[in-house]
């Protein structure tokens, strides 16, 4: 957890809402309702996909990097209208979520994930594994991500990473 996170207790209802936000995130991506994905973030947000190695080396580059909800919407419109890639789908499996309070308004969450990618040909692979490091705005319902850092265990990606992790 980030140094900003205090060890104050987190209310059960807050935990349930965080869990719900993460469930909606996975559902939007895996069920191909990508248009809902940017709406789970606050307007001035930060989304970054990095690797454990880059993260440990303190390198700022992200395989995907966005610092606004607009940039996330652009990712979706590019996938729908602009980019060439073969039809594929993800299945996320997200483990138990650890939640700590940063302030009255913000909690930090950590969860571990696996993503299986299935191509339209039927070929399925374990595409990615890693950890989500989140900062979540809990000041109003629905909760939204202020920041979601996706740290993948491997720095290698097979062919391409089209759909966000």
């Amino acid at each position, binding site marked *: 957890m980030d140094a900003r996170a205090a060890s104050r207790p987190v209310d059960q209802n807050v935990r349930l809402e965080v869990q719900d936000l993460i469930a909606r995130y996975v559902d939007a991506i895996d069920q191909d309702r990508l248009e809902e994905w940017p709406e789970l973030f606050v307007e001035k947000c930060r989304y970054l996909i990095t690797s454990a190695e*880059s993260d440990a080396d303190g390198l700022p580059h992200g395989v995907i990097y966005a610092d606004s909800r607009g940039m996330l919407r652009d990712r979706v419109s590019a996938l729908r209208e602009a980019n060439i890639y073969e039809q594929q789908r993800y299945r996320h499996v997200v483990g138990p979520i650890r939640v700590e309070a940063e302030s009255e308004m913000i909690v930090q969450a950590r969860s571990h994930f696996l993503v299986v990618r299935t191509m339209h040909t039927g070929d399925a692979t374990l595409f990615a594994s890693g950890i989500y490091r989140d900062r979540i705005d809990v000041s109003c319902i629905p909760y939204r991500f202020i920041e979601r850092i996706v740290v993948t265990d491997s720095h*290698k*990606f097979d062919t*391409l990473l089209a759909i966000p992790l």
Partner: protein
Amino acid sequence: MQQPEQASHQASHQVSHQVSHQVSWPSSELTLVPFRLYTDAEQYALEQERIFKGPTWSYLCLAAEIPNRGDYLVSSVGETPVVVTRSASGELNAFVNRCAHRGSLLCLKRRGNGDGITCVYHGWSYDLAGNLTSVAFERGVKRQGGMPAEFKRSEHNLRKLRVAEFCGLIFGSFDQGVPDLETYLGAEIAARIRRVLKRPVKVLGRTTQVLPNNWKLYFENVKDSYHASILHLFFTTFEISRLSQQGGIIVDDGGGNHASYSIMDRSIGNAEYREQALRSAKDDYRLEDSSVVEGVDEFGDGVMMQILTVFPGFVLQQHLNSIAVRQLVPRGVERSELAWTILGFADDDAAMTERRLKQANLVGPAGYISMEDGAVGGFVQRAVRGLDADAGLLMMGGSDSRSQEFRATEASVRGFWKKYRALMGA
């Protein structure tokens, strides 16, 4: 530059030259390329000897990645694992990452620092120049066993490569006869590297794209100026690179190295692209946050796209302000890896770093442009399986590989095959 030992390894090259069964070409022309070149296992094995261990320079790493004495890094030349080091005296070295004793991998970490390397298997130790410095129990135990009197450590150093640095890029070669690096690059290509890498670089990130195709399909793709504005909507719609823009192709005399560049000019009309009804020229496609395609002219020459290759596997890329080097590594007949190092410069201010990080969304495995290049090689690879007699066509812009002041051409792809055939003796 290091002068490695020549001796024993030359012989094995000679032998493999005699037993080759390589794919035959329909003619001496460069316009017909047999598809079997992408699927044939013997061809692939021969390429390892004649191209990657032949008279070529392979990119190893950045000088900035091993800045300190004692730094080492694991890279590769073709499929051969190689260690690059900066020794105690500050000089650069490279040698095969393989113990001279039983052939075990020496360096197991990707990067590190130390005053030498010891094999975990039997404890043989080497200095950072690759010289054997000690052998465990060389004199035996309790005056029994040990190495015979004729064993000389100096005859069992690691297999060393020639090493050269240009603009902070470190290259290595197995071949003693290869011209020096700057001659190999050619004056025009060297100038195009200098144009970008004038200042000390700073590594912003690393990522690797595993490509489901033969290495040559990627290297052809990156040299192919014809496809760029047709396949990549982001190049065309946001006018980063169009064939109608001012620009050109530079191909070195040998054919293997190239640079393609274009000058961004948003005043050029859309007519030619509209006539072709290209998917990639989508005038109504808009970004909500356009910072990803907004560059500044940092090199002062108006060139906002330059892609440069050095045979057999190096790429230097400038897309707007996104700078990266890419190392192409063959990993089998139908697989290769593209290792990306995303760069900025040491004197970049915070705004420039942020601009580079945002524009990096154009490249890499998830790049608005590069994800498509990751896919097309696989499309070809899957389609050419089992087609023994057929060949692909490279007639755009003529039949030679000369530099041209336009980019509706496949001259630099033909240049690749010119260099390839010369090295393969085909």
